[in-house]
């Protein structure tokens, strides 16, 4: 459906996209996961022909994407990172305005606008101007403006930034529903939980390069660490902690103030031995938490830093 081949985009000396290739399949939710400044938005803007690029090829439905590829643009919907609508128009007028740039027929447009309003849960607010909407409702309006013409490909660029949990859930459910209805979704985010929750496949991007790609389970299977155990200690950094590295099944150890973070080997059961070790040396602790590996763990192992660094 979407093919990006050997894409290079430079801003002067800065290489924003560095020989990146990927393939997005029809009807899947493809997550582009990476920290801020990793090149996600630049990649999307190249795919949408908003930006020219220095090398490579972008094809959608086997056709080259370009600023004048209006037949392709007709199939595409976009939800930009910043909300994009007119403050002077009401919710309904905004949706109708943008939908009208794709669909000329008034009657069919009315039904499409109604569908978008209902889909995004904005029925009670159709006559409101955007400034009277909460942040979450503005985000929903932003989505409604992008999907009203029923695109077959939808680009969502961090649609849940600064959104309350209720609206976030509403948005994520909506994205899943769109995919079920046959829409191919390209979803950029730096929230790993979202990527795990809704994406069929995830591409991890950093410094303009695609570092890894696969389903969330496949990505987790690529790494050498298992569970992450966090223990909050009563005393700060007892000397004896360094010996924890010698416990069988421990992959790595971090000690930060009063928190001990132990990463285990995949499949290794370490918690029992770890707690016995602390007990034997009379090292007191306040709490213990164990987490399964996440995409953040994958990112950390691949790049050596956290997703939100």
């Amino acid at each position, binding site marked *: 459906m979407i093919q990006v081949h050997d894409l290079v985009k430079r*801003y002067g000396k800065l290489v924003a996209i560095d020989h990146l290739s990927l393939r997005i399949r029809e009807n899947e939710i493809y997550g582009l996961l990476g920290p801020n400044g990793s090149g996600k*938005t*630049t990649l999307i*803007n190249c795919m*949408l022909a*908003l*930006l*020219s690029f220095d090398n490579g090829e972008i094809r959608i439905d086997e056709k080259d994407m370009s*600023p*004048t590829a*209006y*037949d392709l*643009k*007709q199939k*595409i919907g*976009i939800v*930009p*990172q*910043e*909300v*994009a*609508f*007119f403050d*002077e*128009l009401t919710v309904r*007028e905004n949706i*109708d*305005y*943008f939908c*009208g*740039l*794709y669909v*000329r027929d008034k009657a069919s447009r009315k039904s499409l606008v109604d569908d978008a309003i209902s889909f995004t849960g904005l029925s009670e607010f159709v006559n409101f101007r955007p400034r009277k909407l909460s942040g979450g409702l503005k985000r929903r309006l932003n989505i409604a*403006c*992008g999907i009203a013409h029923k695109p077959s490909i939808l680009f969502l660029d961090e649609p849940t930034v600064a959104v309350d949990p209720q609206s976030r859930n509403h948005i994520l459910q909506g994205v899943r529903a769109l995919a079920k209805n046959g829409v191919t979704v390209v979803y950029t985010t730096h929230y790993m939980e979202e990527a795990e929750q809704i994406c069929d496949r995830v591409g991890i991007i950093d410094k303009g390069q695609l570092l890894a790609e696969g389903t969330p389970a496949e990505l987790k299977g690529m790494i050498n660490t298992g569970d992450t155990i966090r223990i909050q200690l009563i005393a700060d950094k007892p000397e004896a902690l360094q010996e924890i590295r010698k416990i069988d099944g421990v992959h790595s150890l971090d000690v930060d103030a009063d928190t001990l973070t132990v990463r285990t080997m995949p499949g290794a059961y370490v918690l029992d031995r770890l707690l016995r070790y602390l007990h034997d040396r009379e090292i007191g602790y306040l709490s213990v938490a164990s987490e399964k590996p996440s995409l953040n763990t994958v990112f950390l192992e691949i790049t050596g830093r956290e997703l939100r660094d």
Partner: protein
Amino acid sequence: MFLHVVKYRLLAIIRDRQGMFWMLLFPILLTSMMSVVMMNLINEDMSISPARAAIVKNAAWNSSAPLQDVIATLNADEESLFVFSPVETAAEAEQMLASGDVHGYFIPDAENGLTLHVIRTGFPQTILSEFMSSYTSQARLISDMFRTDPLKALALAADGIQASRLTFEPIDPAQNVSNPWGAMFFTLIAMMALYNALQSATESTAVDPTVYSVGIRQRTMPQHHISIVLSSFAAVAVMGLLNMAVYLLYGQFLLGLDFGLTAYPLYAAAIAISGVFAGIAMGFLISALVPGKRNRHSAVIATSMVMVFLAGMMVLQMRQIVRENAPFLKYLNPADMITDAYYGLLYYGDTARAARNIVMLLVFTAVCLLLTYTRIRRTRYEHL
């Protein structure tokens, strides 16, 4: 698509309270206030008698037959705004000025035309100053022409053009100019026209992905972005013309100002329409050159205000000063073109001058739009 965009952009413009204030209410309020102030001035000061001036009969006077003709013509006209008293010496004129018999006196000068001497400021003195500027600049023009192209100057003389240009024409009541101080208001019409640039700057911003997220969305639509720009242009033009119509009708029929709607309706309308187009085009060009939404609005306001100032707002003589010192500016300043067109039309009944200014305004509009198009086509969005 065209009508769809025009409809919604018009709706957005009408609902933009701040924009409507600057584009319609502010000019109406300013004009109303100025109208009241000017009417008081006229009632208290100006309606009493014409401006009185002495003129010294020195060697320059004796050698300038055209000047003597002008003074004689004005003195003979019963409805003239001037009463000139020729005197033998500057001392005599100085004495008349000191005693209040005249508002000022002129000393003819072979090199510089006329020099005005006053001891107070006020409306009679302003009229005398206007007379001096007009006479001096026209005399210098013909003198220069004799130096550089005597044949052309002689041809003009043969056509009798000199005589008419050397005459400072008073307002002709037959031309239905009910308010002789209307020139001040022509600059307000110019300001009103140029303020449309604010709206066109807003519209340009809405399709510019570098400064507004809506621009990103609009650039991904299956429409050529120039077609969206043109639809926005049409919406701004419709609104600008409606605002201008409301303003002119309000000024003419409620405030009693003369904007030429009864005497020269077609010319008055054509000047207003071409002025609105020039303002809109100027806004598009400024937006294409200046990055950032706020910077654009600031640049538009600053440019408009400088232009109307140079066209004579606040200081009526500014037009004359510009014409004498930087005559090329009149080709770059739509406010001056609008003011000059109304001035020529309503003070002199000069429809050719009005038509010339209308053409200049349309050329200005075309050049701005062409430059904007060229600039937009070359823009590459590298930092979205």
